[in-house]
């Protein structure tokens, strides 16, 4: 007796590793969904969490802007005054710090989840790269936030940042082109302290605007992404932020006036907002810059290894009625409705669906939405599916008939 059994294809090592990570993430989501409910699962709403945390950071940041002056003489005093004398000032400051930390955690989890579940391939590689641009930007904004009070820790971190930015100048071969000076020029080419602080300030606030713009471009065309948190999750997030902010208050002892003669070798930072800084004392600026660039390029090139294998959907000009259901349902915005090519139909206002090949991920949702059979995935067409169904039913009937014959049943 022979059986034909379909074996799952055995993918390569990288894909197996990624799939196992994906299963871990899915398991986490599954148990979280049991706990939080299907519609309020934060592990499935990572993007919306990021947007919400950005909003909280922006609001608390603007509230602090009412009390902060970006001059070297008054920066520390204004922050101290904010923390001590302004009503709810220390809470707002702690909320800002906490939301920034959670923002970085959320972005990293968002990155991991979307990598592990393979949501970066094909047309989604554009989103992946834009997200990868936003990640270091947020990190740099966090770093600049530490520098803004212009205290001891700020000065140390400023020096570290300068070393990392100018680090590429010391690379063996490429350093000859002075890439570090080019990178560091916009921010560090100043002649006095006041200008330096202003540039850091512009980076912090202006960077937030650029981050918002990047998020706008990151949101995929198509059905609107779930970029809004449900109310329940908002309330939970707010409570979490308040609890953490209350438990880990910012101390004013951190704000020591800068002492040029006694710089500490290490300073206390929240490990999450700018985690590469943790490695600075170990690696030094040049090597750290190299590591960061390596990791970033590696991540950005990942989609190249998984190009489209399944052909995109195709539309039948004869059968398409222009109802637009596929246009509504396509999650990638890969369908546009355009006036029909046939002049007679066009004169009657008939439209036809057009597939944008660059955006199609061959998911087949458009196939499910078409009642006229006008859109098909060439890899798996309706005719084949229907013939499989009929074949299965027919085979079963024949088998049953044979058995009834052999058993003597009419």
């Amino acid at each position, binding site marked *: 007796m022979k059986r034909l059994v379909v074996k799952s294809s055995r993918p390569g090592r990288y894909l197996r590793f990624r799939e196992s990570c994906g299963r871990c993430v899915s398991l986490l989501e599954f148990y979280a969904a049991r706990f939080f409910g299907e519609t309020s699962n934060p592990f499935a709403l990572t993007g919306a969490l990021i947007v919400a945390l950005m909003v909280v950071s922006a609001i608390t940041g603007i509230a602090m802007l009412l009390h*902060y002056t970006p001059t070297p003489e008054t920066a520390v005093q204004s922050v101290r005054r904010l923390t001590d004398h302004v009503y709810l000032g220390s809470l707002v400051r702690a909320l800002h710090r906490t939301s920034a930390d959670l923002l970085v955690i959320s972005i990293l989890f968002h990155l991991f989840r979307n990598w592990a579940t393979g949501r970066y391939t094909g047309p989604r590689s554009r989103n992946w790269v834009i997200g990868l641009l936003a990640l270091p930007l947020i990190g740099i904004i966090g770093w600049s936030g530490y520098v803004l009070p212009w205290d001891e820790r700020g000065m140390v971190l400023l020096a570290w940042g300068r070393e990392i930015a100018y680090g590429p100048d010391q690379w063996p071969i490429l350093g000859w082109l002075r890439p570090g000076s080019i990178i560091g020029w916009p921010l560090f080419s100043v002649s006095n302290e006041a200008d330096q602080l202003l540039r850091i300030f512009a980076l912090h606030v202006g960077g937030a605007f650029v981050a918002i713009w990047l998020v706008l471009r990151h949101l995929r065309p198509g059905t609107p992404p779930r970029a809004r948190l449900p109310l329940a999750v908002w309330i939970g997030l707010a409570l979490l932020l308040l609890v953490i902010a209350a438990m880990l208050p910012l101390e004013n002892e951190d704000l020591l006036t800068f002492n040029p003669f006694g710089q500490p070798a290490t300073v206390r930072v929240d490990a999450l907002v700018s985690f590469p800084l943790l490695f600075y004392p170990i690696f030094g600026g040049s090597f750290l810059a190299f590591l960061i660039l390596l990791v970033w390029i590696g991540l950005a090139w990942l989609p190249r290894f998984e190009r489209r294998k399944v052909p995109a959907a195709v539309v039948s000009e004869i059968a398409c009625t222009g109802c637009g259901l596929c246009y509504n349902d396509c999650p990638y915005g890969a369908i546009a409705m355009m006036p029909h090519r046939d002049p007679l139909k066009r004169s009657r206002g008939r439209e036809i669906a057009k597939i944008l090949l660059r955006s199609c991920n061959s998911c087949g949702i458009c196939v499910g939405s078409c009642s006229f059979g006008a859109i098909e995935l060439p890899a798996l067409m309706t005719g084949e599916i229907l013939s499989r169904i009929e074949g299965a039913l027919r085979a079963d009937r024949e088998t049953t008939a044979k058995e009834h014959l052999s058993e003597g049943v009419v």
Partner: protein
Amino acid sequence: MEACDLFDGMAAFERKRSGLGAGSTSADFLGQALWVTLAAVVVSGIGLLAGYTPTTARSFPSVEYIQLSFPLGWWLRGVHKFGTDLFVILAILRLIRLAYRRAYKFGGEFTWQAAVRLLLFGVFAGVTGYLLVWNQRAFWMGGSLAEAAESGGIFEQVYPLGGLGLSEWIPKGPLGDAAMSQGVLRGVFAAHIALGFLAMLAAFYLRTYPRKEVPHWRRYSNYVAPRVQWLVIGALTILALILPPPLGSHSDTLLKPYPILADWYFLWLYRLAEIVTPAVALTIVGLIFLIAMYLPWLDGSRRKGPRPVVTALIAASLITWMMLTLEGAGWELPNLASLVLTTLVWIIALVLGAFAENWRASGRGKKGDEEVRSP
């Protein structure tokens, strides 16, 4: 009837995407230009952030530095200022177009309200930005605005600002007028940046979520035709070159200039405050705001299509506004004459509008617009 979208680049984007060519037409110019202008203002604002110091002592010198010595500072400041003016003009034109096409009904209410809010953001961002220069003009204008708010009285009771450290909001200067202090400057600075954020968030919200009467999901619609981009940026750059925004002189708490001039979009308010007391002027402003926000529900007619009465009223308001602005800028006219003129304008507008409405309703106008039956 195609309802207007705030960022009407959608139609052009779909045309381009469907491969039938023809990017933008004049119908979507407003939306695309609005978006480019907003982007130009935000980007130049970020550049200005790197040169501006928000302290009372150093704000004016830093603005001078930006204008004269900062690399491309003249361009940044010029684009920022004229970009804001252009933004306000485009937002007003947008509102006019929405109103006379009567696109604020039947599902367009949110778009209308968003357009009103965007205009308000633009105007208040412009005012706060104006104050940030901290020259004579800005200083005293801010003072008079603050005075008006104080004398208005209602606002202080509505907003308990003391709790957030803004209790020094309206201190008194040596001349007895409201003077602007460091706390006020910080508050204005924060408000300016907050309004920039709000404008971007409003744009994001408008883009991502669809309008109800449109059956499809609206997609990512910030498509701007290249020629619109070049046109707007080019126009702003040329303006920045030939008409550098004035610097004036450093603010002096002891020298009060006369007349105190505001932004051109607030001159009407000055004039109004001179005619009636500031308190009444502010109340009128509040009424206008309410009418503007709730116009879709005030206009209860179920008929589709433009209504001549609404168009006439809008024309009358525009003419009044222009007259007030001109008078605020110094164009002299005896009070009585201007009053009579304004009243005439409104009476003519109402009469014409009523006639046109009747003519249309009796069917002798265009093929009568059908009544909208509730589903």
